[in-house]
């Protein structure tokens, strides 16, 4: 049930960024799945988060024109990295969350830019990609925590609804 809920959120994020946000010269547009991977790593258990990360990665790879497996790899590495970091730091701290999102968006933008640079020699000098990566990292760091906050609120809401639903069923069953 929880995995399904998380997958639906993942799907909504992907649909949102591939239909409503995509297009035009929006070079600042970063991948919303980056903050979502951070959210999954710090707030969810492995058995719920990993299938969502894998499915999300496959969907993004299927929709993107890049190398198949690129997004999947990036999400899995981000997830594993954040899980390692929160072993040593308090994951509820907003500063830590911001740093994690900054690192994840930076990692993703840099990894995809690097793959583009390696695979397509006509893209030009690497310096040309830096402003784009910079913009994505900036917007990711600024807006990512808000997205994460929104996801946490959604999660709490879903959790309380789920709890109420099962409590009602239990009480009715007793009667």
């Amino acid at each position, binding site marked *: 049930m929880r995995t399904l809920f998380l997958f639906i959120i993942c799907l909504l994020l992907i649909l949102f960024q591939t239909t409503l946000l995509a297009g035009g010269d929006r070079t600042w547009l970063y991948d919303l799945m980056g903050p979502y991977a951070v959210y999954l790593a710090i707030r969810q258990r492995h058995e719920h988060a990993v299938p969502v990360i894998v499915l999300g990665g496959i969907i993004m790879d299927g929709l993107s*024109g890049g190398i198949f497996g690129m997004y999947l*790899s990036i999400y899995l590495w981000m997830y594993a990295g954040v899980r390692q970091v929160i072993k040593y730091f308090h994951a509820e701290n907003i500063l830590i969350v911001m740093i994690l999102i900054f690192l994840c968006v930076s990692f993703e933008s840099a990894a*995809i830019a690097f793959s583009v640079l390696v695979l397509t020699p006509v893209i030009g000098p690497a310096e040309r990609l830096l402003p784009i990566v910079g913009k994505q990292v900036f917007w990711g760091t600024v807006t990512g925590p808000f997205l994460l906050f929104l996801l946490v609120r959604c999660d709490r809401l879903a959790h309380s609804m789920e709890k109420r639903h099962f409590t009602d069923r239990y009480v009715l069953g007793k009667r």
Partner: protein
Amino acid sequence: MVGIVIALVMMNILLLTLTGKYSASLGGLGRGTMVIISPLQESLTVFVQSVKLIWYQYFFLVSTAEENRELKKMLAESRLRFSQYDEARIANARLRQLLDFEETTPLPMIAAQVVGKDPSHWSKTLILDKGTVHGVHHGFPVVVPDGIVGMVIDASGHFSKILLLTDPNSAVDALVQKTRVRGIVKGSGKNICTFDYALRKFDVDVGDVVVSSGLDGVFPKGLKVGRISDVTRMDAGIFQHIEVAPDVDFDILEEVFIVTASSLPEFSETP
């Protein structure tokens, strides 16, 4: 621990290199994703367009009508009618242009609607609402009246993915229409392409029209690619650096044509 991480990173890079080289073997997985996600993208796009239409044509006018009900009501009606006429006129012109293009083109084509765009800024692809059941297959050229849009790189039952002309992996064998100078138009990731391998000795000017040569076996001869926007002749080297601005506005593409012919006849070149 560090050793394991390094080994995993190396393995990951190796796998990505292999999937990059042999992407066809994973095409099924990508197509599967398209089969599931693209209908949702299509529904969302249609829904958002409907909401936009309602918002701009109804709610916006209703909210302004509150200030001066009678006057605004009349104004709203006129505006609504005008907006509908205007929208109909624009749609009429666009569809007429598409229809003329389809009728004057000697190729079998099917119209398709754009339902999704590439999630990444780095690659330029679009998802269309036509797939293999409509006769669309890998390698089919995609065009609009303004010129070449790109080519189909993947197709599932009802949807297909196209690589735009501006993608860094795109290339079209082309000619400068006036002087017949041949070269390869390559995407640069921006809305400008490069025209490579044009020898320095040939005369090429800004504003010259570039058309497809038909020699790549993908795009029919004579399709418009764009206009030359910049020419640089360096002191060294045998080629000149030429930039081509495509006539197609890739940011606002809504409908396109997929050329479904296996053999590609020539287009009549129009300056």
